[in-house]
């Protein structure tokens, strides 16, 4: 992946492999993820998109803040994830969330418990959002379709 734009945008070539990113990482402490290694492998043009560790990052940005050389670590991981998706490599469980966003407009949709709590608290039973606005919702779904996300994750609508 000697992609010049990728290397330029992420500033990966500035990395000196000091490991401050790995050590700052909350996921790193609790899993196999070594941020430094992912960056090294991406920098060397190795195939990283198949790595499971890629999806263990919580995008907390602490590594990015702490990197003494200013490598855009999180941007690199996100870009690698985007490429992984294009190759069909991603956690299946996310597909449900994406379907949910397309079908309801919300990342976590309104459930009966939610309706109950809202009423009890004196809020409108259903919140003001895209689901209640037919035209906006249609346009929203159109946008998602146009941008091709559903195809990438194998969802048909």
């Amino acid at each position, binding site marked *: 992946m000697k992609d010049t734009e990728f290397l330029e945008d992420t500033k990966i070539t500035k990395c000196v492999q000091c490991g401050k990113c790995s050590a700052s990482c*909350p996921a790193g402490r609790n899993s196999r993820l070594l941020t430094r290694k992912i960056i090294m492998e991406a920098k060397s043009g190795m195939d990283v998109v198949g790595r499971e560790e890629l999806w263990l990052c919580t995008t907390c940005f602490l590594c*990015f803040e702490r990197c003494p050389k200013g490598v855009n670590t999180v941007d690199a991981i996100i870009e690698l994830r985007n490429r992984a998706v294009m190759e069909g490599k991603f*956690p299946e469980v996310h597909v449900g969330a994406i379907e949910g*966003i397309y079908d309801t407009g919300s990342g976590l949709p*309104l459930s009966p418990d*939610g309706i109950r709590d809202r009423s009890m608290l004196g809020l409108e039973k259903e919140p003001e959002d895209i689901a209640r606005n037919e035209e906006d919702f249609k346009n929203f779904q159109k*946008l998602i379709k146009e941008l091709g996300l559903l195809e990438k994750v194998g969802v048909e609508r």
Partner: protein
Amino acid sequence: MKYAFFPGCIAKNVYPSIEKSTRMVFEKLKIDLVDYPYSCCPAPGVLGSYDQDTWLTLGARNISLSEADELGIVVICNGCYGTVHRVYDILDKDEEKKAMVNANLGKVGMDYKGTYRPIHFVDVMDSMKEEILKNKKSDLGLRVAIHYGCHYLRPKSDEATYNVEKPKVVEGIVELLGCESVEFKDKLSCCGAGGGVWSGAEELGIDILEEKVQNILDVGDVDCIVNICPFCHMHIDSTQKKSQFKADTVPTLHLNQLLGMAFGMKDKHLGLHTHRVSTRDVVKAVKKAGKEKK
């Protein structure tokens, strides 16, 4: 003061107590909130990881809704902030990406200008300390562990003036309310929910949370965790109740709920009873502190 109000999916659909507390507190502070037909911000951890162009476009769509009314967005969630604020910054600096977004929005008759930078409610509160003091009914007397979460602090934008390793903003607010903020190991660390991990790597999300809660428990005598993000709130509150979670539990409150209590609002109105980890002890402690003062 008037803002377009972006509650985010969790505050609307899963923990509406946070939406309610926000509306009550903002009303007290005489800040007008206007609603718009927002979609999911969209969730940066999932949508952003899958397709940046989609994430940028849908984010811009949300921001653009209030532009015609000359209003900027206020968010009450780090996740939403992580989207709208970053989308704003990216489109502000990258003409090509902005053109791409508008080319797409144009297909549905919309247009993104980027006139008003989205603001996080913590910054609004930070600018209203006098009004907060005026509305405070009594000191809460709580020992709190502040959980900043991630996207309010990071990535730090060029104009920001806080110290990303030792921020003081939320401490300043809770101290106004008569609370003591405690230091604990890895205070500024992520709760473990972001980046798609909450759903996509559940065990890891639980482990990270467990580590954080244990660090807080190790300090001792902490009444509650104060958060500034419904996603963190949901993770901290619900996940502590999962069977895989091994440590003792600590109740959590969104900052607007804490503000509500300080303003003398009833805990039931603020929805504190809807939390999974019971807030009963917190409410009791607050009542006691209120009586002692008198």
